[in-house]
Protein backbone atom coordinates (compact mmCIF):
# COMPACT_ATOMS: atom_id res chain seq x y z
CA UNK A 1 0.00 0.00 0.00
CA UNK A 2 1.26 3.46 -0.79
CA UNK A 3 0.05 6.48 1.06
CA UNK A 4 -1.97 9.13 -0.75
CA UNK A 5 0.36 12.00 -1.62
CA UNK A 6 -2.04 14.67 -0.40
CA UNK A 7 -3.40 13.19 2.78
CA UNK A 8 -0.80 10.61 3.75
CA UNK A 9 -3.73 8.27 4.36
CA UNK A 10 -3.39 4.58 3.55
CA UNK A 11 -5.82 3.53 0.83
CA UNK A 12 -8.34 0.93 1.84
CA UNK A 13 -8.24 1.55 5.56
CA UNK A 14 -11.11 4.02 5.52
CA UNK A 15 -10.89 4.66 9.24
CA UNK A 16 -12.96 7.55 10.49
CA UNK A 17 -12.49 9.20 13.84
CA UNK A 18 -15.33 8.93 16.33
CA UNK A 19 -15.93 12.23 18.14
CA UNK A 20 -18.62 12.77 20.75
CA UNK A 21 -19.53 15.54 23.17
CA UNK A 22 -21.71 14.37 26.02
CA UNK A 23 -23.25 15.71 29.21
CA UNK A 24 -23.43 12.35 31.02
CA UNK A 25 -20.63 10.23 32.45
CA UNK A 26 -18.14 8.67 30.01
CA UNK A 27 -17.95 4.91 30.50
CA UNK A 28 -14.18 4.57 30.07
CA UNK A 29 -14.31 0.78 30.40
CA UNK A 30 -16.94 0.49 27.67
CA UNK A 31 -15.02 2.87 25.40
CA UNK A 32 -11.89 0.77 25.71
CA UNK A 33 -13.70 -2.53 25.40
CA UNK A 34 -15.18 -1.40 22.10
CA UNK A 35 -11.83 -0.20 20.72
CA UNK A 36 -9.32 -2.96 21.48
CA UNK A 37 -8.55 -6.28 19.81
CA UNK A 38 -9.92 -7.04 16.39
CA UNK A 39 -7.02 -8.88 14.79
CA UNK A 40 -5.06 -6.07 13.15
CA UNK A 41 -4.62 -3.93 16.27
CA UNK A 42 -1.34 -4.43 18.09
CA UNK A 43 -1.61 -1.59 20.58
CA UNK A 44 -4.24 0.73 22.02
CA UNK A 45 -3.25 3.85 23.93
CA UNK A 46 -5.90 5.68 25.89
CA UNK A 47 -5.90 8.92 27.82
CA UNK A 48 -8.53 9.58 30.44
CA UNK A 49 -8.63 13.05 31.96
CA UNK A 50 -10.21 13.42 35.39
CA UNK A 51 -11.53 16.27 37.49
CA UNK A 52 -9.05 16.74 40.36
CA UNK A 53 -10.28 17.83 43.79
CA UNK A 54 -7.44 20.38 44.08
CA UNK A 55 -6.56 19.29 47.58
CA UNK A 56 -10.19 19.16 48.66
CA UNK A 57 -10.87 22.79 47.67
CA UNK A 58 -13.05 21.92 44.68
CA UNK A 59 -16.66 20.74 44.74
CA UNK A 60 -17.11 20.60 40.94
CA UNK A 61 -15.89 21.81 37.59
CA UNK A 62 -18.34 23.37 35.16
CA UNK A 63 -17.47 22.79 31.53
CA UNK A 64 -18.79 25.23 28.96
CA UNK A 65 -18.34 24.64 25.25
CA UNK A 66 -19.17 26.17 21.87
CA UNK A 67 -21.62 23.69 20.32
CA UNK A 68 -20.85 22.86 16.73
CA UNK A 69 -17.35 24.29 16.80
CA UNK A 70 -16.21 21.94 19.59
CA UNK A 71 -17.15 18.82 17.61
CA UNK A 72 -15.68 20.25 14.43
CA UNK A 73 -12.35 21.19 16.02
CA UNK A 74 -11.87 17.82 17.72
CA UNK A 75 -12.80 15.99 14.53
CA UNK A 76 -10.31 18.14 12.61
CA UNK A 77 -7.53 17.23 15.05
CA UNK A 78 -8.49 13.55 14.86
CA UNK A 79 -8.36 13.63 11.04
CA UNK A 80 -4.89 15.18 11.26
CA UNK A 81 -3.83 12.33 13.56
CA UNK A 82 -5.20 9.79 11.05
CA UNK A 83 -3.20 11.44 8.29
CA UNK A 84 -0.01 11.55 10.34
CA UNK A 85 -0.03 8.04 11.82
CA UNK A 86 -1.31 4.70 10.44
CA UNK A 87 -4.12 4.35 12.98
CA UNK A 88 -6.70 1.59 13.03
CA UNK A 89 -9.07 3.42 15.38
CA UNK A 90 -9.28 6.93 16.78
CA UNK A 91 -11.83 8.21 19.28
CA UNK A 92 -12.34 11.32 21.40
CA UNK A 93 -15.15 11.89 23.87
CA UNK A 94 -15.47 15.12 25.88
CA UNK A 95 -17.96 15.93 28.63
CA UNK A 96 -19.64 19.26 29.26
CA UNK A 97 -21.68 20.52 32.19
CA UNK A 98 -21.04 19.89 35.87
CA UNK A 99 -18.30 17.36 36.67
CA UNK A 100 -17.45 16.13 40.17
CA UNK A 101 -13.93 15.47 41.48
CA UNK A 102 -12.80 12.00 40.47
CA UNK A 103 -15.14 11.93 37.45
CA UNK A 104 -13.79 11.79 33.93
CA UNK A 105 -13.70 14.88 31.69
CA UNK A 106 -12.24 13.51 28.50
CA UNK A 107 -11.34 10.20 26.85
CA UNK A 108 -9.02 9.75 23.90
CA UNK A 109 -8.13 6.40 22.37
CA UNK A 110 -5.81 5.56 19.46
CA UNK A 111 -5.17 2.06 18.15
CA UNK A 112 -2.50 1.02 15.69
CA UNK A 113 -0.54 -1.98 14.54
CA UNK A 114 2.50 -0.79 16.52
CA UNK A 115 2.64 1.02 19.82
CA UNK A 116 4.62 4.15 18.99
CA UNK A 117 2.02 5.37 16.49
CA UNK A 118 -0.71 4.87 19.10
CA UNK A 119 1.27 6.67 21.83
CA UNK A 120 2.16 9.61 19.62
CA UNK A 121 -1.28 10.03 18.11
CA UNK A 122 -3.02 9.97 21.50
CA UNK A 123 -0.57 12.52 22.89
CA UNK A 124 -0.94 14.71 19.77
CA UNK A 125 -4.73 14.57 20.04
CA UNK A 126 -4.67 15.69 23.67
CA UNK A 127 -2.15 18.49 23.03
CA UNK A 128 -4.28 20.00 20.28
CA UNK A 129 -7.59 19.30 21.96
CA UNK A 130 -6.27 21.38 24.90
CA UNK A 131 -5.29 24.34 22.74
CA UNK A 132 -7.87 24.28 19.92
CA UNK A 133 -11.16 22.79 21.17
CA UNK A 134 -13.51 25.50 22.47
CA UNK A 135 -14.12 24.34 26.06
CA UNK A 136 -13.77 26.41 29.22
CA UNK A 137 -13.61 25.24 32.83
CA UNK A 138 -14.97 27.12 35.82
CA UNK A 139 -14.40 26.02 39.41
CA UNK A 140 -17.09 25.58 42.02
CA UNK A 141 -15.66 25.52 45.52
CA UNK A 142 -16.46 23.46 48.59
CA UNK A 143 -17.48 26.58 50.51
CA UNK A 144 -20.39 27.02 48.08
CA UNK A 145 -18.88 29.93 46.16
CA UNK A 146 -18.16 30.00 42.47
CA UNK A 147 -14.44 30.18 41.94
CA UNK A 148 -12.73 31.60 38.92
CA UNK A 149 -12.41 30.36 35.39
CA UNK A 150 -9.45 28.01 35.06
CA UNK A 151 -6.52 29.86 33.51
CA UNK A 152 -5.07 28.77 30.23
CA UNK A 153 -1.56 27.38 30.60
CA UNK A 154 1.19 28.55 28.27
CA UNK A 155 2.78 25.12 28.68
CA UNK A 156 -0.19 23.71 26.76
CA UNK A 157 0.62 25.98 23.81
CA UNK A 158 4.25 24.87 23.94
CA UNK A 159 3.20 21.22 24.02
CA UNK A 160 1.05 21.67 20.92
CA UNK A 161 3.71 23.75 19.20
CA UNK A 162 6.33 21.03 19.44
CA UNK A 163 4.37 18.85 16.98
CA UNK A 164 4.96 21.45 14.28
CA UNK A 165 8.68 20.88 14.62
CA UNK A 166 8.59 17.08 14.56
Amino acid sequence: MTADANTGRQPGLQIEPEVRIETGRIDIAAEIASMGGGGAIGGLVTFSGYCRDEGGRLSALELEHYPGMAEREIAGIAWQALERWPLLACRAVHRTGRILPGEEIVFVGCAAEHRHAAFEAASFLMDFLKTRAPFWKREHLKDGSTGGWVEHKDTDDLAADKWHRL
Partner: protein
Amino acid sequence: MKLVYFAWVKERIGVAEEQVELPAGIITVFDLLHWLKGRGANYEAALQAPEIIRVALDKEHADHSDPIAGASEIAIFPPMTGG
Protein backbone atom coordinates in the same frame (compact mmCIF):
# COMPACT_ATOMS: atom_id res chain seq x y z
CA MET B 1 -23.74 40.45 12.25
CA LYS B 2 -24.24 37.90 15.03
CA LEU B 3 -21.70 37.95 17.86
CA VAL B 4 -21.51 35.10 20.39
CA TYR B 5 -19.51 35.15 23.61
CA PHE B 6 -18.22 32.41 25.89
CA ALA B 7 -16.83 31.91 29.41
CA TRP B 8 -15.59 35.07 31.13
CA VAL B 9 -15.98 37.16 27.98
CA LYS B 10 -19.70 36.33 28.06
CA GLU B 11 -19.85 36.87 31.81
CA ARG B 12 -18.25 40.30 31.67
CA ILE B 13 -20.22 41.53 28.65
CA GLY B 14 -23.38 40.22 30.25
CA VAL B 15 -25.02 38.59 27.24
CA ALA B 16 -24.42 35.28 25.44
CA GLU B 17 -25.02 36.74 21.98
CA GLU B 18 -26.20 39.84 20.21
CA GLN B 19 -26.79 41.28 16.76
CA VAL B 20 -24.67 44.31 15.96
CA GLU B 21 -24.47 46.77 13.11
CA LEU B 22 -20.84 47.30 12.30
CA PRO B 23 -19.76 50.81 11.29
CA ALA B 24 -17.79 51.23 8.09
CA GLY B 25 -14.05 50.64 8.41
CA ILE B 26 -14.23 47.47 10.53
CA ILE B 27 -12.24 45.16 8.29
CA THR B 28 -10.35 42.70 10.49
CA VAL B 29 -10.87 40.77 13.72
CA PHE B 30 -8.50 43.30 15.31
CA ASP B 31 -10.73 46.18 14.22
CA LEU B 32 -13.82 44.44 15.56
CA LEU B 33 -12.29 43.79 19.00
CA HIS B 34 -11.13 47.39 19.38
CA TRP B 35 -14.47 48.77 18.26
CA LEU B 36 -16.34 46.46 20.66
CA LYS B 37 -14.05 47.45 23.53
CA GLY B 38 -15.23 51.04 23.20
CA ARG B 39 -18.93 50.17 23.52
CA GLY B 40 -19.10 50.44 27.31
CA ALA B 41 -17.59 49.44 30.65
CA ASN B 42 -18.74 45.82 30.32
CA TYR B 43 -17.03 45.47 26.91
CA GLU B 44 -13.97 47.27 28.23
CA ALA B 45 -13.81 44.75 31.14
CA ALA B 46 -14.17 41.77 28.79
CA LEU B 47 -11.68 42.98 26.20
CA GLN B 48 -9.13 44.87 28.29
CA ALA B 49 -6.39 42.63 26.91
CA PRO B 50 -7.57 42.06 23.33
CA GLU B 51 -4.32 40.33 22.38
CA ILE B 52 -5.24 37.22 24.41
CA ILE B 53 -8.80 37.03 23.09
CA ARG B 54 -9.63 34.24 20.63
CA VAL B 55 -12.05 34.68 17.77
CA ALA B 56 -13.82 32.21 15.51
CA LEU B 57 -15.46 33.13 12.23
CA ASP B 58 -18.33 30.76 11.49
CA LYS B 59 -16.87 28.25 13.97
CA GLU B 60 -13.32 28.33 12.63
CA HIS B 61 -10.36 29.80 14.51
CA ALA B 62 -9.28 33.15 13.07
CA ASP B 63 -6.20 35.32 13.50
CA HIS B 64 -6.62 38.93 14.59
CA SER B 65 -5.43 40.03 11.17
CA ASP B 66 -8.09 38.01 9.31
CA PRO B 67 -10.85 39.95 7.50
CA ILE B 68 -14.32 39.37 8.94
CA ALA B 69 -16.21 40.04 5.73
CA GLY B 70 -18.52 37.18 4.85
CA ALA B 71 -18.78 35.71 8.34
CA SER B 72 -22.32 35.31 9.61
CA GLU B 73 -21.40 34.32 13.19
CA ILE B 74 -18.38 35.68 15.02
CA ALA B 75 -17.49 34.06 18.35
CA ILE B 76 -15.32 35.84 20.92
CA PHE B 77 -13.88 33.93 23.86
CA PRO B 78 -10.90 33.48 26.23
CA PRO B 79 -8.12 30.96 25.58
CA MET B 80 -9.51 27.44 25.85
CA THR B 81 -9.13 25.28 28.95
CA GLY B 82 -10.73 22.00 27.95
CA GLY B 83 -9.35 18.47 28.03
